[in-house]
């Protein structure tokens, strides 16, 4: 537990970072607070990453048909293995471009979750805590913005592209830490400019009068939900007047680069993620759905993997050529894997939280390695098991977030980023 002094420091740090003073004031104050702690917390290390591009494969990505191949095993099915740029690492033959980038990527083949249903699994992966009826936990992007502060005061620190309803929320934190949802990346941030025919003066007059009524309403109904909407109006108006709004506009990108990412929503989402990171948005999640391959698993791979292959390869090259890969941690993960055993009558695979794969690149990660191992059939983790909290602790570690720092929910319950997970330091 934190003592009072360090809690006060944390609060003042949080307040400062919210005011946009300095980029990492909170961490410094936390580091100072922790130096005084008795029980020897893990020493803080300098962050190797500033930002995260978090690619979430919704539905449960099959590990055997992507990054944990078992050539020759009965559980492999028709999926074929492909050699990569790194000796000894093979991935699906539907990922030929990514194979050439393997020197930048660390594959984790020993992920293990305790949650076998979608909502629960997605929630767990995003928050490190299991889904409860009594409290909502913050997603990793909210934790980063709380503890690390925003870097661009005009843009939201946390954006989610193409997804929604998969457990990514501010949880018990204030709603300003919640991801800004972008439904269609090509559409950008809709309605972010004043409507034609509404002058600045008119806009301001309307806003001022609405705000006056809202102030009265919020005074009568002093409730979190109401306050949150007052915050949202401030945020929206700030965003509208910001020059950084162009960060949301993919039309500013050259056509050939847009094509390089692929015309899919996921591809364009990855490109938008890069633009946002470039403009100092700290955490961008891009979702690709449709991984729940109970039926026709192998046919689905023919459609899904080329999209990932193109988008992720383009993203890694693009980040690399702009010098952004060093400071940007790219994460690809999912809620669980899929059963090695193939359901032959529908050529499908079912949910499998016991063993699955994810990957990380950039942001201080040592590429060209494979961490953890499953057995010959892909059913059991036999080496270096990585739990969901461990996986998230690794992200937090890259970002230099203190893992033992306690944040209290409004009801006074203590929580930490990554719920006591141990970072996989071998990846760095």
């Amino acid at each position: 537990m934190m003592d009072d002094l360090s809690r006060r420091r944390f609060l003042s740090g949080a307040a400062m970072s919210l005011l946009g003073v300095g980029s990492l004031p909170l961490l410094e104050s936390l580091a100072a607070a922790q130096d005084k702690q008795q029980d020897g917390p893990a020493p803080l290390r300098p962050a190797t990453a500033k930002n995260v591009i978090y690619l979430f494969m919704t539905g449960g990505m099959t590990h055997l048909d992507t990054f944990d191949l078992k050539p020759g095993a009965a559980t492999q099915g028709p999926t074929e293995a492909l050699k990569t740029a790194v000796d000894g690492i093979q991935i699906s033959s539907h990922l030929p471009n990514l194979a050439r980038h393997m020197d930048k990527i660390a594959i984790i083949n020993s992920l293990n979750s305790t949650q076998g249903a979608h909502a629960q699994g997605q929630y767990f992966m995003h928050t490190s805590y299991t889904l409860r009826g009594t409290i909502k936990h913050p997603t990793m992007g909210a934790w980063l913005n709380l503890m690390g502060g925003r870097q661009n005061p005009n843009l939201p620190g946390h954006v989610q592209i193409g997804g929604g309803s998969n457990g990514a929320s501010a949880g018990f934190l204030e709603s300003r830490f919640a991801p800004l949802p972008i439904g269609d990346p090509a559409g950008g941030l809709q309605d972010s400019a004043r409507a034609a025919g509404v002058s600045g003066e008119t806009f301001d007059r309307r806003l001022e009068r609405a705000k006056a009524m809202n102030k009265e309403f919020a005074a009568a109904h002093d409730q979190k939900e109401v306050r949150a909407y007052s915050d949202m109006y401030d945020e929206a108006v700030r965003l509208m007047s910001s020059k950084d709004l162009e960060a949301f506009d993919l039309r500013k990108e050259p056509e050939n680069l847009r094509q390089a990412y692929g015309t899919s929503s996921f591809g364009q989402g990855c490109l938008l993620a890069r633009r946002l990171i470039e403009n100092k948005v700290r955490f961008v999640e891009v979702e690709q759905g449709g991984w729940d391959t109970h039926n026709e698993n192998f046919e689905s791979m023919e459609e899904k993997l080329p999209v990932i292959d193109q988008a992720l390869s383009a993203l890694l090259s693009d980040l690399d050529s702009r010098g952004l890969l060093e400071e940007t941690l790219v994460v690809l993960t999912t809620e669980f894997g899929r059963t090695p055993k193939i359901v032959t009558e529908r050529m499908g695979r079912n949910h499998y939280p016991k063993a699955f794969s994810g990957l990380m690149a950039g942001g201080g990660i040592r590429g060209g390695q494979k961490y953890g191992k499953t057995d010959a059939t892909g059913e059991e983790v036999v080496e270096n098991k990585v739990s969901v909290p461990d996986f998230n602790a690794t992200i937090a570690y890259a970002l230099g977030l203190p893992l033992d720092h306690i944040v209290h929910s409004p009801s006074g319950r203590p929580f930490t980023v990554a719920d006591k997970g141990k970072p996989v330091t071998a990846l760095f």
Partner: protein
Amino acid sequence: MSLRCLAIGMVLLLLHAPDSRAEGDAPGALGRISRAKIASAAAEIDRRIDADLEAKGIKPTPPTSDAVFGRRVYLDLIGRIPTGAEAAAFLASSDPDKRAVLIDHLLESPGYDSHLFNWFADLLRVKSKMKAASGEAYIDYLKTEIEENTPYDELVRELLTSSGPAMERGNGAVNYYLRDRGMPEDNMSNTVRIFLGTRLECAQCHNHPFDKWTQIQYFQMVAFTGGLQYKDTDYNKSEVAQHVREIEKSLKGGAGPTQQAKNFNKMMQPLGYGIHGTGTGSVRLPHDYKYPDAKPEAAVTAKTMFGDAVNLAHTAAAPAVKGKRKTPPARGGGAGVGSREAYAEWLTSPKNPRFATVIANRMWKRMMGIGVIEPVDDLRDDTQPSNPALMEGLRNLMVEVGFDLKQYLRTVCSTRAYQRSAVLGDLAEGEPFHFQGPLLRRMSAEQIWDSLLTLVVANLDETLEGADSPEAERVYKEYEELSRLTKEDLQLIANEGKRKAKADMKAKEETPATLELQRKIARAKKKGDEDEVARLTKELEKQTGKPLLMPKKGGRRAGADKDLVRASDLPQPARPGHLVREFGQGDREQIEASHKDPAVPQVLTLLNGFIERRVTSNPRAAINDALSAARSPEEKLKAAFLGVLGRLPGSAEKALWIPDLSAQGASASKDLVATLLNTHEFMFIQ
């Protein structure tokens, strides 16, 4: 208020005033329970709340004003704000029973069906496009049942026992199982969660870590749906199926199915799509079952998880499952001992310890903002309602009204508790709530959309499509046409397919320019850019000199206003980026995936998007009609406040706006409407 508004309002009230023969009772089906009886049932609920409040020393909030009540009950029962005329009429009425009259009027209006459908759609994960096929038959089925006010227990029984072809008219209930096609285990977890408020899914792979359920109990429950087949096997025996198989064979090449065979198969797919099997009452444990009470892959027999035991031998002789609603069952359910029927009977019985409680609690939460039991779907043996007597009273009420949701909601709306002012301030997290008043709630995404439309489309509810939509009709027609195909028809289709394939090949060979155009069309199609597809197709036609098939227009309705329909008539769920999605309509992938969290795009839409485009600068918008009809600045101000907020302006508001309205006229009216729509008062239900 303007005379015109008043006149319209009075007419509305007169139309729906109680008829003299019934001594103050609602006309029609609602009248089967008298207002006096409803009032006494509501008083019983109030007694249970008030006793609890008194025991805890909590003061109830004061009764609401008519304005707050009127707006609240419109939103809660029919999912939209009242129009200015409706609000004015309600406020002006001097009938001492006017609240009861309004409740009954709303329960019998089409908006009620629309609003309840949205609720079911979120709960049941209803989608217009399901994984393998259209979901329109399911939507049509649910809308029909809601419009007929089918008792809830009967509806659930139908969902759980249905079988037969999914696309057959009136048989949409089978989509309840098809929604989880190939996943009988998940379907059972969902059933238990939705209807019994109990979380069983953890026990799918191991004994439940936090509750008492064991893995074997889980599979005993799954066994009720044992032997379920996700196809209409009766179709396989039909003559059409015979012909389809032959032709498919003739289309297949040596090296496996050709594209044509695949296409043909897809075209015929609605025919065999459905549910078969009345339930074998038996299922096998997983291969990795690890507890000592049974061996892996051992057969387990269906057994209920709580409440009464079910005797399957007895039900084996029961008549075949009724699968269809409007036509007598044409086929039996096939092999099985009828365990699905037994499952449904046990689950929906008033004797089931949780079924009535769960729906009573869910409906109470829908009206009051919070359940007596929270969360509503994680009941355990030690679950304590915040007010046990109230929970018992609500459960009894649900059973007494025969699971008639209309009568139940009618009673809830009649309680003094519902008619109190909203509770102020934050709730203490984790503390039980004692219903000193309803909670302040943000409107649901659908309520926001439907309320905005109330300001745009005059007589909005008359445009409601409801059941028997053209989309459902198309699905049924297609199924009927396919069922009727003769061998000759099928051969003709196959030959045409071959011919077209050849023609396509030839077209591709033509020039690089047309090839590029075709690529572009494919790309635009993928993006869903219909205008671009149409433009490019025309271009291609010009170049090749051949008319090509026009791409299907995606809209559900023709005309410019095809999108201006109530949320229940939009595709389910609405497309990503649609206003209703931005405000939190769920993606329908998970049970109750909708949310009410604030987000910047919502505010941007209200500031710069929908309101500006569709309301303030739209001369045909209903609210602008009302404002132009108002003759003085005072009347305009009243019309705007009544139309957007359901109340009259206060004196400070008059002092602020009347000078502007006098001096600037139309532009001030625009400012006024845009301002009111950007208030918390609009977005929240008090």
